């Protein structure tokens, strides 16, 4: 069991927790946070391969992680703004109630 295996196991655990949360919860904020957890697991993989991978490059993995964090921040801001907009319309943030557009 090398450190790389350990990191990959940790990140797959984090990914599965995020996936389960995003699928199971009916609160929209928690669904968004589950997606954030999955993004974090992907970042963890980048760092693990950058550090323990076979051919380490000076900074590639870390720069990829920086860009991913920036995109995740933008995504979280837009997502929470959407949640607030939906809440203002419906006075509710449960996913099942937001079915106005259902055919």
């Amino acid at each position, binding site marked *: 069991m090398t450190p790389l295996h350990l990191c990959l196991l940790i990140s797959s655990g984090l990914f599965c927790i995020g996936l389960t949360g995003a699928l199971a919860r009916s*609160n929209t904020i928690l669904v968004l946070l589950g997606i954030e957890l999955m993004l974090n697991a992907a970042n963890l993989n980048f760092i693990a391969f950058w550090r323990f991978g076979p051919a380490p490059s000076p900074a590639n993995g870390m720069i990829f992680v920086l860009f991913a964090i920036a995109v995740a921040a933008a995504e979280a801001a837009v997502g929470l703004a959407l949640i607030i907009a939906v809440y203002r319309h419906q006075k509710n943030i449960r996913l099942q109630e937001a079915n106005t557009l259902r055919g």
Partner: protein
Amino acid sequence: MLGSAAAAMLLRNLIHSALLLILSWASVAAFYLWAGAEFAAFAQILVYVGAISMVVLFAVLLTRQNQVADVVIEPASRKRATTALTVGACLAGILSAAVVASRFPAAAVTAPATTVKLIGLELMERHGAALLIIGVILTVALIGATLLAATEAKRNPEDAP
């Protein structure tokens, strides 16, 4: 890290979940520090623990409801939770089996020597275009988020009963 994330997804109290998720992000930053990626760790702390957590807490407080109405668990949501747990457990099994079974070439013993100066040079020279695009994306996303959250829903006069 994993424990606080799992507890955050399980708890019913939204504020507790948000605080536990902040703990989980902080431990991800600790993992980065352990792996020798100091710059990514500090970026993670600044962005997640500092900024996103504030936005999440604001959203939780703004959309807060009375807790009494939330106690009833519908059978549909229970069924969905069971399905999600099954999917998550299956995926965890598949992923960990794949990870354990795979053989990687020998790892480098020492961490790649990455200084902040090197990161800055790489960002500005090799990845300059990506940096500009990220800046534009962030600006557009934040303006859009402000517009979405700040505009009052205008009600049509004809819609009124």
